[in-house]
């Protein structure tokens, strides 16, 4: 059984009072609770904090835990002899047994007391998981692998952690924040109760080109000034592969062009759109010939780009 330092998880010394434990837990829960925190790794950190609190707030569990003594986190420890007699039938080394599961059994056994309630059937726990996929994976649909460690009850009601790999086919149609249900893939039902479900939330990984908004995608398209002025046929990347797009003459900077149905597919039918934002870019350096042509254009054109601005400012003054 691997040792976990519950006091260190809460940032406490071993002699901490109940009030200290509660205070430390509340502070850390506000910081790391996955429903309220945006910190990276918050979920894993909260799990650790909650597990520590579940043990240390319960006087009996805390006393049992304290009897293990102080060890380095992750160090293989042997429970005291009285635990071994209490868990007869366990393998002697308690190898692979989770400390929190064992302490819960201790508390559960005490509360149930082996009474008639112990044989009641329960629906298995539902679990939540998060995973990230790329825009391309969302577009085409994808296969993802989830590695889980599921608690399972044996015939005597003892909990063991069973490693399990789920290969999940995510059909096309998912977008950022998509919630999915994997029916019956949660915790095992107890005493014939139905198995729980697994809930999966998918987020889209940041993409260098496409900015998703629901099933629509947005893309910045760099255009040369003459392409924007004269119109052009240009190659545009889409998640389904590059396509040729007609840029109408006189396209202004920041103007948005819509490629209908070229966004992410929706779950049942149809697709979002791809919005192309025109970005007019200048060459870093111009050749003598280019400068000559631009100067000629400047002389020939009577376009007054700031006419509106000047009119407005004369009204203001």
């Amino acid at each position: 059984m691997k040792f976990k330092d519950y006091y260190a998880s809460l940032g406490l010394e071993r002699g901490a009072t109940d009030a200290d434990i509660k205070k430390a837990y509340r502070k850390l829960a506000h910081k790391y609770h996955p429903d309220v925190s945006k910190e990276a790794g918050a979920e894993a950190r909260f799990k650790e904090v909650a597990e520590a609190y579940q043990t240390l707030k319960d006087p009996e569990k805390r006393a049992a835990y304290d009897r293990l003594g102080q060890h380095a986190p992750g160090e293989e420890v042997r429970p005291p002899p009285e635990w071994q007699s209490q868990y007869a039938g366990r393998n002697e080394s308690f190898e692979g047994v989770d400390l929190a599961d064992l302490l819960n059994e201790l508390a559960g056994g005490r509360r149930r007391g082996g009474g008639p309630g112990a044989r009641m059937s329960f629906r298995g726990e539902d679990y939540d998981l998060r995973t990230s996929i790329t825009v391309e994976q969302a577009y085409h649909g994808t296969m993802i692998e989830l590695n889980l460690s599921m608690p399972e009850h044996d015939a005597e009601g003892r909990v063991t952690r069973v490693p399990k790999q789920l290969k999940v086919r995510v059909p096309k149609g998912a977008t950022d924040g998509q919630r999915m249900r994997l029916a019956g893939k949660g915790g095992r039902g107890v005493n014939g109760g139905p198995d729980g479900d697994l809930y999966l939330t998918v987020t889209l990984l940041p993409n260098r080109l496409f900015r998703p908004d629901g099933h629509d995608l947005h893309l910045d398209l760099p255009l040369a000034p003459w392409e924007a002025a004269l119109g052009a046929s240009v190659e545009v990347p889409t998640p389904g592969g590059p396509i040729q797009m007609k840029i109408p003459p006189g396209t202004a900077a920041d103007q948005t062009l819509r490629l209908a149905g070229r966004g992410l597919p929706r779950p049942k039918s149809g697709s979002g759109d791809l919005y192309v934002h025109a970005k007019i870019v200048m060459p870093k350096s111009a050749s003598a010939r280019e400068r000559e042509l631009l100067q000629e254009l400047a002389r020939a054109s009577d376009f007054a780009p700031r006419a509106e601005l000047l009119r407005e400012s004369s009204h203001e003054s």
Partner: protein
Amino acid sequence: MKVEWTEVTFIDEPVEYSLADLAERSHLAPADIIELIDCGALAAGSAHALEVARTAARLRRDFEVNVHGVALAMTLLQRIADLEGELRTLRAHSPGAP
């Protein structure tokens, strides 16, 4: 290690859960669920009713607050989610945005 293949269902369709079902799956007391519905934090019959009820149960358990505290937190969390959604849309529409 056990390897299982599985298909997923997207949660977009409204699902009708009975009060007892919602209570069992979320570990909330039926009275608490009714309270959450009454104050508008939970819409029975919405596609996300179970998700909302489970979030409420987590907040209640992990922050050791009563159902009124949970309802207030849920309303504020929803407002944050709405604002984040608006921000995401605005960013997606802004050329040059990250």
